[in-house]
C-alpha cells in the first residue's frame, strides 16, 4: 500500500483504483487504446482486434480455471458455439446484431452448463477430461451438422451492423471489441470481488471446507461455467466477425490449449493475468514472425520454420513459466511494483 493513503470510509476502501496516480495512468491507457486505430497500420489493427478477442476469452477461462479451479481444455470449442450461434442468429434468422451477440453468449452459456453438470461429482483431472470430451463433441457437431454450420467448408459470416456502424470495417470492429473487452474486464473484476467471487475462490482452495461454511458447490460451479462460457461466446461471436468465414479449424483443441497457456503465463487467478498473458503471447508471436521472416530470407528452402519455431518457443515459454514463475506475469508485476515503491529502503 502506498504511503499516505488513508481510507476514511468503506466506500473508499472498496475502490478498485485507489490512488490518483493509478487512475490517471488508467485514463492515459484507455485514451491510448481509443486513438490507437488512427495511429497504427492496418495489420497492427487486426492484431489488436485479435488481442482484444483473446482478452475476453481469457477472462472467461480465468474465471473458470483461475478462480474456481476447474481446468477447462474446451474453451475454444465454446467460442466456436458462440461464433456459429451469433452468425446463424444474425445471418440466417435475421436477428439484429446486438441481440444476436447476447443470444450467442446465452446459447454458449447453456452449452457450457450442460458440460458443467458433471463437475459436481468430478474434480481436477477428471473434469479436465470432461472438458476435452466437450471439445471433441462440439467440434464434431460443427463439422458434421452441415445444414446448420456448413460443415467442413465453413460458413460465411454476415457482417453485423449497429446503426451507422458496420463491423466488417476493422476500425468499427476494433471499437466494438475494445468496449466489450473493457466491459468484460470490469464484470470479471466485480464478480471476483463480490460474494460470488469469494465463494468461487473458496471452492478452488478447499471445496469441502467451502461446502461446510455454506457455499452451494453445485450452484457456484455451474455459475462459473455459465459466466465463463458466456464470455467465450461473446469472444467467439467477435472472432466470427473478424474472420468473416468460420470453419471448425478455428476452434480446435490446439486453440483451447493456447488460451489456457495465455492465462497461465499471465497468472491464473488475477484479473490482470488475462491481459498480461494475451499481451505477452501476441508480442512474442510478432517477434517470432519477424525472426522467421529473416530466417526464411536466409534459408529460403525451409518453409516450415515459422510453424516449428513458434511451437518450440511457446512450449519452452510455457514450461519455463511454470517452473520459474508459476503465478505468472501478474505476480511478477506485483513484486516489481512493491520493490519500486519501497526502493531504496526495502526492509
Amino acid at each position, binding site marked *: 500500500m502506498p504511503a499516505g493513503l488513508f481510507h476514511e470510509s468503506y466506500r473508499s476502501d472498496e475502490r478498485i483504483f485507489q490512488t490518483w496516480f493509478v487512475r490517471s495512468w488508467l485514463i492515459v491507457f484507455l485514451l491510448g487504446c481509443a486513438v490507437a486505430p488512427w495511429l497504427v497500420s492496418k495489420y497492427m489493427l487486426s492484431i489488436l482486434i485479435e488481442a482484444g478477442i483473446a482478452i475476453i476469452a481469457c477472462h472467461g477461462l480465468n474465471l473458470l*480455471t483461475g478462480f474456481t*479451479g476447474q*481446468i477447462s481444455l474446451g474453451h475454444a470449442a465454446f467460442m466456436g458455439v458462440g461464433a456459429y450461434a451469433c452468425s446463424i442468429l444474425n445471418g440466417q434468422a435475421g436477428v439484429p446484431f446486438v441481440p444476436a451477440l447476447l443470444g450467442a453468449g446465452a446459447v454458449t452459456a447453456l452449452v457450457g452448463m450442460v*458440460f458443467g*453438470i*458433471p463437475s459436481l*461429482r*468430478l474434480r*481436477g*483431472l*477428471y473434469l*479436465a*477430461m*470432461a472438458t*476435452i*470430451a*466437450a471439445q*471433441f*463433441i462440439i467440434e*464434431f457437431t460443427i463439422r*458434421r451438422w452441415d445444414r446448420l454450420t456448413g460443415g467442413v467448408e465453413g460458413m460465411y459470416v454476415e457482417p453485423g451492423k449497429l446503426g451507422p456502424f458496420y463491423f466488417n470495417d476493422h476500425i468499427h470492429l476494433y471499437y466494438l471489441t475494445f468496449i466489450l473487452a473493457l466491459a468484460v474486464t470490469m464484470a470479471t473484476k466485480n464478480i471476483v470481488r463480490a460474494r460470488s467471487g469469494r465463494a468461487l475462490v473458496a471452492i478452488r482452495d478447499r471445496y*469441502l*471446507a467451502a461446502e*461446510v461454511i455454506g457455499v452451494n458447490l453445485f450452484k457456484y460451479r455451474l455459475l462459473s461455467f455459465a459466466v465463463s462460457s458466456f464470455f467465450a461466446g461473446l469472444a467467439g461471436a467477435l472472432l466470427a466477425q473478424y474472420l468473416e468465414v468460420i470453419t471448425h479449424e478455428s476452434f480446435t*483443441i490446439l486453440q483451447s*490449449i493456447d488460451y*489456457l*497457456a495465455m492465462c*497461465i503465463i499471465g497468472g*491464473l487467478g488475477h484479473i490482470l493475468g488475462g491481459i498480461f498473458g494475451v499481451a505477452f503471447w501476441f508480442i512474442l508471436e510478432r517477434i517470432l514472425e519477424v525472426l522467421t521472416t529473416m530466417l526464411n530470407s536466409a534459408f529460403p528452402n525451409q518453409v*516450415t*520454420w515459422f*510453424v*516449428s*519455431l*513458434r*511451437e*518450440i*518457443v*511457446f*512450449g*519452452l*515459454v*510455457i*514450461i519455463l513459466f*511454470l*517452473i520459474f514463475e*508459476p503465478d505468472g506475469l501478474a505476480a511478477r508485476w506485483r513484486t516489481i511494483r512493491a520493490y519500486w515503491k519501497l526502493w531504496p529502503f526495502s526492509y
Partner: protein
Amino acid sequence: MPNEFLFFMQFFLTGLSMGSVYALVALGFVLIYKSTSILNLAQGEIMMVGAYVCLSMTLDFGLNFMAAFAVTMVFSVLLGLAVERLALRPLIGEPIISVIMVTLGLTYILRGVVIMVWGNDIRQFNIFPQEPIDLWGIKLTYLYVWSMGISLVLLTFFAVFFKYARTGIFMRAVADHQTAAQSMGISVKRVFAISWCIAAVVSSIGGILVGNIAGVGVDLSHIGLKVLPAVIFGGLDSILGAIIGGLAVGVLEFLSAGYLDPYIPAINEVFPFIILVLVLMIRPYGLFGIEEIERV
C-alpha cells in the same frame, strides 16, 4: 455362418486389434499416473516422435525394421528420462493445473521439433504385406493381427512384471504410498524415472503400430487424446482397467462405425468421447478405479 454375425465379427475383431494398441498407450498413461500422479497429455506426441524416429530409421537410413525398432526403443528411453528430469521433477508438489500444463507445453515442443525435422507430410511404412488374411470369412490385414499380437505380448509381459519383478513391485509400492515406500528404502525418484521410460517405450511401440495402420503424420498425436476415454473408462489408477478400457473403446469405436454410420456419418470419431462423458456421469472414478471417499 450367417451374414449378420460375420459383419459383427469383422468390426469386432478390427476393433479389438485397434483396441489392443489403445490399451498399450493407455497403459503408459496409467503407469505415469499411478506412480507420479501426473496425467501425461503429451503421450500422443511421444507416440508420434517414436513413430517418426522408427520411420526415418527404416526409410532414410535404410536400417531393417528390427534394428530401427531397437534404435527407437533406446531413443524413447532417453526421451522419457529427459522429460522426467527436466520438465516434471521441478514441479513435484505443484497444483494439478501446472503439471497438466507442463505436459501440454511438451506437446508444443515435440510437435515443433517433429515439424522442423520431418516436415508436414504424411508418410507410410511399408513393412507388412497388404493382402488381408481370410479368417473364416472375416478379413483382417496382417497389420491388425500383428498389432494385436505385439500388444498382447507386451500387456502380458507388463502384467507379469508388476506381479513378480522387483522393480515392478517397487513401482506398485510407490503408487500406493510414496512416503511409506521411501521409508522402506525404495528410491522414489528412480521409480519415477523408470515409469516415464516404460511409458515412453510403450507409447512409441503404440505409435509405430498406429503409424503402420494410418500413416505417420502430425495427426498421429490425436490418438493420444483418443486414448483418454479408454483410461477414464477403466479408471485412471488401474492397470487392468486401462487394458479393458482400451479394448472396449477400440471395439465400441469400430462397432459404432459399423452400425451407426448410416445414421450419423463418421460418428466413430466422437463415440469414445460420448462414452467418456457418460462414464464420468455415472461412475466418475472409472470402472476399476479407486473411489476416493472424503470425509470432513
